[in-house]
């Protein structure tokens, strides 16, 4: 194999020799990875790709796919995904700083809902990405062609959210969060959005706020955040958490504590349009069904408790 010849064939005259060396490395690895890719693809059920044997044939003819050529400029020849479905950043391999930046853009997808770019790393991160990606392509059973869409990180890691990508408006994100597509099988309909903004209104407060429910893992975190947002918002003190009724596994006694001890009650409107007290159901169920929140005067909330419990029973 003589990658530099391929370059001349394609006609890229900007290449300098150091880049050609990078290409050689890239080519070798890429070729190897492509073969790996071939092996895997044959095994994927429901694959819509053309028979990979054809590709193997074409590979042996020495026709290197164009990415190799452009790989010349990449400082990251080793950071090429084994599945070949997508390639990592093309960063002019001029400096470590640049290379680092490029790698960072493609760090392994991590659980990151607030849209921050993964911290600037170094080349090492890129290699990690490769290792993980290679590992996952074996597990990938997603729809073919969804480039990396379904290649998740290890176990619970969701995709890292690159800020502002894909380029859809905030407005759409929020609208979709409260209006998710109804899937055909309702039972396992998933809310695909990574953010779940709901409005919080407080009786007597001059304006509404919005919170992203997916940012909190439990009621405690959530209530702390609300407290911050609506400082001066008193809910009374009942137990060591400081937030009566906002713990999982609520018992009747806690509800009565809430109603007797505090001025305000935190309520939410659920999918069915009913207003419920926050804290009745497990956190995940709450985030799934909560449409919006209202901090209402305790006296208004009295009628809510019994219904909430009944509903829980109905759902179970």
């Amino acid at each position, binding site marked *: 194999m003589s990658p530099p010849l391929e370059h001349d064939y394609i006609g890229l005259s900007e290449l300098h020799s150091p880049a050609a060396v990078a290409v050689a490395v890239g080519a070798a690895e890429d070729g190897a990875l492509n073969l790996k890719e071939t092996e895997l693809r044959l095994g994927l059920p429901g694959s819509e790709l053309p028979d990979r044997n054809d590709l193997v044939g074409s590979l042996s003819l020495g026709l290197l796919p164009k990415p190799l050529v452009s790989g010349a400029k990449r400082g990251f020849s080793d950071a090429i995904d084994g599945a070949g479905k997508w390639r990592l950043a*093309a960063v002019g391999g001029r400096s470590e700083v640049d290379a680092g930046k490029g790698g960072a*853009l493609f760090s392994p997808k991590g659980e990151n809902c607030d849209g921050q770019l993964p911290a600037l790393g170094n080349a090492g991160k890129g290699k990690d990405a490769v290792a993980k990606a290679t590992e996952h392509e074996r597990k990938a059973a997603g729809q073919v062609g969804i480039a990396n869409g379904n290649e998740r990180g290890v176990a619970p890691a969701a995709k890292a959210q*690159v800020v502002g990508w894909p*380029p859809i408006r905030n*407005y759409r994100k929020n609208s979709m969060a409260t209006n998710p*597509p109804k899937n055909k099988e309702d039972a396992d309909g*998933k809310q695909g959005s990574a953010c779940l903004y709901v409005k919080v209104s407080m009786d007597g407060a001059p304006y509404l706020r919005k919170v992203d429910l997916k940012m909190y893992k439990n009621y405690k975190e959530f209530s702390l955040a609300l407290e911050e947002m609506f400082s001066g918002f008193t809910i009374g003190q009942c137990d060591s958490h400081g937030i009566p009724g906002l713990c999982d596994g609520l018992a009747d006694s806690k509800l009565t504590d809430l109603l007797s001890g505090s001025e305000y009650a935190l309520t939410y409107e659920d999918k069915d349009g009913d207003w419920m007290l926050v804290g009745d159901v497990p956190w995940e169920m709450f985030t799934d069904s909560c449409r919006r929140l209202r901090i209402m005067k305790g006296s208004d909330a009295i009628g809510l408790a019994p219904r909430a419990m009944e509903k829980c029973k109905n759902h179970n």
Partner: protein
Amino acid sequence: MVGRFRWAAMFPDEVWEHVFSFLTSDADRNAAALVCRNWNRIERRSRKRVFVGNCYSVAPTVAVRLFPEVRAAVIKGKPHFADFNLVPSDWGGGAEAWVEAMAEGWPNLEELRFKRMVVSDDCLDLIARSFKNFKVLSLVSCDGFSTSGLAAIAANCRNLRELNLRESEVEETCLNWISHFPESCTSLVALDIACLEGEVNASILERLISRCSNIMTLRLNHSVPLERLVGLLQRAPQLMDLGTGKFSARHNPQLFSRLESAIAGCKNLRNLSGFWEPGLTYLPAVYSICEGLTSLNLNYATIQNPELVKLISRCKNLRRLLVMDLIEDSGLVAVASSCKLLQELRVFPSDPYDAAEPVSLTEQGLVAVSAGCPMLHSVLYFCRQMTNAALLTVAKNRPNLTCFRLCIIEPRTPDYVTQEPLDTGFSAIVESCKDLRRLSVSGLLTDLVFKSIGASANYLEMLSIAFAGDGDMGLHYILSGCKNLRKLEIRDCPFGDKPLLQNASKLETMRSLWMSSCSVTLGACRQLARAMPRLNVEVINESGRGPLVAQPDNCPVEKLYIYRTIAGPRTDTPQCVWTI
């Protein structure tokens, strides 16, 4: 020019003004203004409509003074990437300076259209009080105001014809702002409140609509239930543009037939949108007017096939379709065979982040529409896979494309069949579509594609690039080519200092350049700012590294916004923004 013959002296100014009044496009008026000093003076003193594409390109007081007879102004603020959270929320784009200057100098202002500006309630108050004959307020993608400000507008603008809040973020402080429209208000022609998140009192709205017999556009928000829509439609059968509220309700055959006949009664309906939380049972209620529709906006409607296709296939006269990818390839094939007059297609992702259950929308759908719709010239398409072959086919089928925005959701996705970059595909687009004005590229791309774009895209005005290119050459190709480029926005590309410095003068021929997460250094910005006094070079560094003045030249720049201006550096930059 014939000797010293003075054209302008042939006729009095008023005659020239009258002649100029037939020049409707800004470009034509601009051209006339350049002919000679007299025409410049006469034109600008009689200009009624002014368009300011970048609110910081000229000082408001200067603009108001130069064009004293303006009746309609369009002002745009934040860069486009602000839509995607790339611009800090306090960056700027405040409308105060403009509104204050206009209140002073344009008391006869009738129409004000802001886009991506921060408009406060005080601004709205000032607008409401300052312009006696105010007719049109359009706040597109704006924020900073609340329903209290809207109440002020409603209460004080006696001749208000149009109130448009498209895609703005509005705080809800005044619950019944709609009730502030006085009983005497009968002038409303267009009301777009679809973006409002709070409850809108449907009864008050109904009374308002009843007395505004000229109402043509009514776009409701999600809070208006289907039952109330019936009443509204019955009172406004002359509607041409309807945005429904919530489009579902409990199964109720009576409601269905009332809705059906109310809609059928709107024989002039041409634009349909809304469909918040759509329920399938009520969709057929709109079937009767489908044939008359020229624009259908389902981009927030989570309807799936087959109901979605059933609806769209009836709209045989559709020019404009906005839809979610729930339509899938099969749906687009149906569109290609039913909607032969289609000119604009936008397909949005229903599940942009997780794709847990991916939709079957691929490059095939795009190809089908490009083949079946001969008048298609504007495309915005979100998908997850693409091939060069598909792009080549689209280019061949539709050389009349003027706007092509393709977003392959995963960055740097190659041709999924050949694994190659999508250079050849996009090159084919720019080479074939000679009138292309707007282009957004995505997927795996090398510098080659930029070479093609620079060389072939002669009429390109706006270009968006993300996660593409190999190095400086890519940007250099663009800046040294693309003769008509006005707006360039780039993110996460390995473009550095050299092409910027080499093409500094190009930047003055453009409205603006945005670069974020590229490889530009502070030193280059300093050089550029020194060399080009009529550019504002704004560096945005949010990571709080300390004052930029102290940073060395090789300090990397996170975000860069460069725009031409005759107003000099602006005075309202927040902490994270430095004008070099």
